[in-house]
């Protein structure tokens, strides 16, 4: 095997992966399937979030409600007098390949070179007579099941109502304003860019970013009973009984390294106009029906009940309910389940058919998101996708796969050209270089930002492989196989042989690296890398075997795996070591749990007797020392680890900690349920990873799985123990689980194979082996007896 691909080889790889990645992100839609039935008028209040106040221009991140069709998204203010939509496209990235290293051999990390996710457009609907101070009975709801934001209020005796949704079948945002009681709408619709574009009139604009990306957006508005007309740079409507505003937009981003991630033939403005015109041939009701059917097809695949809330809790709006949960210290099982469902709503809205979600998903309030709203490969992007499979949204995972596959040619090229730059402190001291890796931050242009992150490739691969374990999709495995193999090649070139002090034992250790994001910069054999690479090698072996490929290389990798050094417990601290040193070289309560990556998301450290007891104890001791109070994503990771250690109290408390209402930028949950990360006192920002990591932990408390083993209620907290159910939860090994419990014990578990054959199903000390063919299911009723 040539581990130094030639230029020709690189191009071949690029072409192949480009073809696999499929069509450009913003492309002509297939004719939508129009369901005949109207959507259900109302859904279970368990799937409704509601508020009694809107957002304003300055509070969009905390109070704006997110919508999205997987690519095109918006945060909406829902203010009666001024509906503001901050519109994003997942590909609306500044920057470029960014392949000129800084003097220290690391990557530039700015908005011009590396790039940043930015807003696509602002849509404003002004209704001068509907000032918030002049209306009564204001309420807005987010119907998680239907994917619709509804706002209602009374002005001078007339009930006004508006619906907002992001349709994937029609590839548009739709705002539909209606009223009951003889009211009329008079106002303006304004579409603005956010990058200083010159509008092409009131109904569309186009622009190009310095990095070369072209983009555009278009709107139209139509109503009945009044007039709607273009008036200079805006649309005015007068005396309308109802009004529908349709928006589309996108970029000419293409997930293809061979074309430098651009589709030069695509005119985004023209395409947006086409989509808007096509959608506007339908009534708002038709568009809604089409959207709801599409949304429900994903949403309804999974359900969760954690118990029953009180009437008093149900009477509170979502924000008051969060505050009451924190204040009264009384579990609110329906709120907690809704928090999980909200994350599924975000996943459906933010991760379909385009780029995956970065630090803020699709939702921004400006063009300068912290850390560029990028893909952080040392926990954050992985955490974003931990819940997709666990909560029955496996198809939403594909955006991450598509991304990695499309980036691979560029990652490979950049690694080959730049990783062993003599200025790069993390370069391979062996002098060898192969495969690919990434920086801590990655962009969609094939580039990295900030510092090199050698083990990032392994973590990405392991995340992609876990999706295979849930789905048993051979197609997926084939797509990710080049990523796994390239990462193995990288590590084959990078690992150093060393003799453990005081022994004659030779082991392989990772070259100089930084355990994210603390401690020494040049530590060899960091636990983080050892664990991730060990898992990578194991996954590669499985993949090669399953696909029947590269038997010889698989043997090589298996040999490397056997020789990898594994961390020990420090005699000084009693903790699992982070740096191949008995000393604590970092912050005791550091946010990252890098040395525990073998506990979660890895499976190497298990409290089931298969792992040496001192290792489990050392992991628990380290986790204890890290504490219970950190940023949202860090709490979520802690919760997942405690769930793995079967400590329901701590796992649940960390969930509760993340549900604390954020106040003045403090860590916690904003009114719109976005997780807020306190950057500094008084300044909190949105980080979406906790919105996915926390629900992943909630599921992990109810079911643990790895191929061949499913464990029911491993860490069921008292708060949820009275009665509950999980329906449609994928488990690793290729099954889907329906689980019901009562009084802390499973009453029924139904396992359906989506490709899995045999697995153990355990509860406590009892277990059962189940063998199924794909499509078959089995129901177990007596597990707790």
């Amino acid at each position, binding site marked *: 095997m040539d581990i130094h691909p030639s230029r020709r080889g690189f191009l071949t790889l690029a072409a192949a992966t480009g073809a696999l990645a499929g069509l450009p992100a913003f492309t002509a839609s297939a004719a939508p399937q129009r369901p005949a039935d109207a959507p259900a008028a109302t859904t279970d209040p368990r799937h409704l979030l509601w508020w009694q106040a809107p957002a304003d221009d*300055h509070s969009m991140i905390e109070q704006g409600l997110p919508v999205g069709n997987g690519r095109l998204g918006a945060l909406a203010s829902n203010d009666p007098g001024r509906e503001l939509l901050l519109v994003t496209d997942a590909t609306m990235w500044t920057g470029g390949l960014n392949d000129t290293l800084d003097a220290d051999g690391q990557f530039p990390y700015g908005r011009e070179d590396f790039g940043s996710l930015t807003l696509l457009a602002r849509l404003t609907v002004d209704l001068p007579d509907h000032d*918030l*101070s002049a209306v009564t009975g204001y309420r807005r709801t987010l119907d998680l099941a239907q994917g619709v934001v509804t706002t209602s209020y009374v002005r001078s005796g007339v009930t006004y109502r508006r619906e907002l949704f992001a349709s994937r079948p029609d590839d548009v945002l739709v705002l539909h304003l209606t009223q009951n009681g003889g009211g009329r709408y008079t106002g303006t619709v304004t579409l603005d860019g956010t990058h200083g574009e010159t509008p092409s009139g009131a109904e569309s604009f186009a622009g190009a970013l310095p990095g070369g990306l072209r983009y555009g957006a278009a709107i139209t508005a139509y109503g009945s009973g009044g007039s709607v007309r273009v008036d200079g740079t805006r649309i005015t409507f007068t005396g309308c009984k109802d009004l529908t505003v349709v928006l589309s937009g996108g970029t000419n981003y293409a997930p293809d390294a061979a074309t430098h991630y651009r589709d030069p033939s695509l005119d985004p403005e023209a395409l947006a106009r086409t989509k808007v015109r096509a959608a506007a041939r339908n009534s708002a009701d038709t568009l809604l029906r089409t959207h709801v059917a599409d949304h429900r097809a994903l949403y309804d695949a999974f359900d969760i009940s954690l118990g029953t809330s009180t009437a008093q809790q149900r009477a509170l*709006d979502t924000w*008051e309910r969060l505050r009451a949960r924190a*204040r*009264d210290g009384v579990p609110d099982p329906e709120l907690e389940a809704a928090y999980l469902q909200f994350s599924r709503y975000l996943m459906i809205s933010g991760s379909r058919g385009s780029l995956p979600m970065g630090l803020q998903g699709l939702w921004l309030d400006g063009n300068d998101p912290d850390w560029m709203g990028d893909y952080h490969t040392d926990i954050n992007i992985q955490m974003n996708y931990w819940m997709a499979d666990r909560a029955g949204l496996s198809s939403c995972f594909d955006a991450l796969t598509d991304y990695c596959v499309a980036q691979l040619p560029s990652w490979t090229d950049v690694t080959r050209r730049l990783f062993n730059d003599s200025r790069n402190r993390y370069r391979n001291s062996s002098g060898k270089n192969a495969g690919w890796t990434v920086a801590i931050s990655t962009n969609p242009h094939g580039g990295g930002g900030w510092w090199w992150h050698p083990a990032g490739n392994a973590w990405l691969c392991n995340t992609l492989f876990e999706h295979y374990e849930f789905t048993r999709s051979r197609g997926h495995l084939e797509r990710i196989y080049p990523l796994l193999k390239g990462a193995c090649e990288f590590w084959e070139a990078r690992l150093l042989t060393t003799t453990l002090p005081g022994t004659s034992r030779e082991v392989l250790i990772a070259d100089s690296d930084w355990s994210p994001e603390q401690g020494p910069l040049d530590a060899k054999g960091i636990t983080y890398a050892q664990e991730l690479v060990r898992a990578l090698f194991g996954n590669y072996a499985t993949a090669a075997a399953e696909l029947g490929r590269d038997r010889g290389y698989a043997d090589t990798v298996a040999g490397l795996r056997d020789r990898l050094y594994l961390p020990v417990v420090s005699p000084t601290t009693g903790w699992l070591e982070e740096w191949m040193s008995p000393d604590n070289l970092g912050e005791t309560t550091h946010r990252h749990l890098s040395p525990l990556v073998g506990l979660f998301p890895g499976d190497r450290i298990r409290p089931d007797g298969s792992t040496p007891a001192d290792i489990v104890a050392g992991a628990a001791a380290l986790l204890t020392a890290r504490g219970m109070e950190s940023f949202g994503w860090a709490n979520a990771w802690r919760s997942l680890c405690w769930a793995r250690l079967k400590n329901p109290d701590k796992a649940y408390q960390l969930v509760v900690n993340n549900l604390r209402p954020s106040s003045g930028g403090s860590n916690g949950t904003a009114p719109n349920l976005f997780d807020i990360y306190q950057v500094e006192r008084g300044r909190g920002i949105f980080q979406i990873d906790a919105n996915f990591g926390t629900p992943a932990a909630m599921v992990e408390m109810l079911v643990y799985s790895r191929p061949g083993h499913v464990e029911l209620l491993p860490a069921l907290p008292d708060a949820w123990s009275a009665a509950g159910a999980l329906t449609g939860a994928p488990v690793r090994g290729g099954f889907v689980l329906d689980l019901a419990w009562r009084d802390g014990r499973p009453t029924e578990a139904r396992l359906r194979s989506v490709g899995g054959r045999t697995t153990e199903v355990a509860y406590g000390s009892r277990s059962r082996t189940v063998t199924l063919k794909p499509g078959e299911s089995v129901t177990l009723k007596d597990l707790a007896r």
Partner: protein
Amino acid sequence: MRSPSYAVLPARGLRAAVVLALTAGLATAIPAAHADPAIATTATTDTADATGTAGTGQAAPAAPTTPAAPALAAKPYMGWSSWSMQSSKYPGLNPDGDFSYLTEANVLKQTDALAAKLKDFGYEYVNIDSGWWRDRAWKPEFDAYGRQQADPVRFPSGMKAVADHIHAKGLKAGIYLPAGLEKEAYGDGKTPVWNADGCTTADIVYSDLRTTNGWDSAYKLDFAKPCTQKYIDSQAQLTAGWGYDFLKLDGVGPGSSKSGDNYDNVADVAAWQQAIAATGRPLHLELSWSLDIGHAGDWKKYSNGWRVDTDVECYCNTLVSWENSVDDRFDDTPGWTRHAGPGGWNDLDSLDVGNGAMDGLTKAERQTYATLWAIAKSPLYTGDDLTRLDDYGLALLTNREVIAVNQGDTPPARPVTPSDPQQVWAAKNPDGTYTVALFNLADAPAAVTADWSALGFTGKAAVRDLWNHENLGTRRGGITEALPAHGSRLFTVTPHGSTLTSTAYEAESTANTLGGNASVAGCSACSGEKKVGNLYLGGTLRINDVVVAKAGTYLVQVAYVSGDARSADISANSGGAVRHTFPSTGDWGTVERVSVPVTLRAGTNSITFDSSGPGYAPDIDRISVPTSPR
């Protein structure tokens, strides 16, 4: 008639005397052609000589036979003041240097605009603020008697002509002076005092020339010296002689950022009242700024209004800004509330809501600003450019329902909830309705709820939206509305339910548990004449055995004493605490009440007041727990 004892007449007698004086003043002010014949025939017209000195104050002998003209400050006064525009860096306002807006031409222009746009709604005073006697370089000018005299560039026609113009429009004229003898008026101590044989400026100040007022710009007047009252008399005579109806005395202490003997201007204010009375002209005396609440009795005794806070102006590119310092009034007003009433009002300063761009406020902030001023019964005088009011500003300033709240015979509102970002203020009106204002002081929109139980009743009530002139129908239990950032709503609530029943628990009860420094103390105003105080550094009061029949959120009314605004962490049972700020009760002898939502379970509960926050918590008198939850 105007004997020295006049100032110490009982209030009732004082008011009667003022009515007489006002009658006389009106007769002076109103041009003959428009004068009410009834007044004209029952009052003696004083004459003013050309130098602006008033007549010698012959008494108005006859009691009016027509209904008495309103007493001074029977209601909060309404009008316009020059200072907001003078103090602003808004483009174009002060082209000739700081404060140069103040000119005769501008005052007359604003007078005409006030008459045309706002007079019909009750706005009547046109108040000239600081600088009328100062040149563009802010150098003061004085007459031969050490009295401020008009700067000829600013006011080429003199101050009397301006007052005459204002009066000709059917309006009242206001003017301004600083407390004390301005240093530049001292003139080596040899400047004679008008109409005071042998008195010179050296005879009215302390020999050490100690300074006074908020800027230390004047020598402190020594009222132990017989000449000193004469100097005030001379200023008052000049002012009244010009025909002014209103005087703002500024830099008054204790207050105006000053304390201590040198800055105690109570005697100045008393002298002014006496001097005004001696002029025979009714002259509204308003004091400024940030007057010491500890002297509220003095201010009430000698004046018609007092600024409770610092300047509302921001001295920036707009007239005001929310943070500097409209928002301060929400915390600084409640302690003063009970001191307001006919004859003297809590002055929150200018109401600059007439032009959004110039004011520097959002629409929501402007409405909130006007709402607080209205319900607190602050004087309503705008500092806006009345020639440039925008539609929204004009609507705010001329909303008759809101003006009626301010001008009607209703008491000022005060908070019925803690001073949290979302807060509710209310007043119970003589007709049984309530004035209820919802405020969202947070920087983001929020829902705000007024619970009827916080007002003292349960069940249904009809709600009238005053700003929007709409009946919102009947609401049960309370009303929740979405408010924009810094937003407000203003309602009249007419109860149709029943009186709230509740159970009281005394803080000092031996059934309670005190922690840390907390201790029982005497309190004559408190129920049971005891309270629990010394709640600081984590001291706690746990009220035990609070029994309710049904689980739910209860609006627990807390009776407390707190001479300044203080916070306490309140929790029920083992639940998490919520920090609430209790508005000042103004002193340590007054009990006020606010209602706090507390979640209780059916059966026995405990409610804890914890002082773990910064500083002290308020002293707690008792709590009252309604029979039914929210």
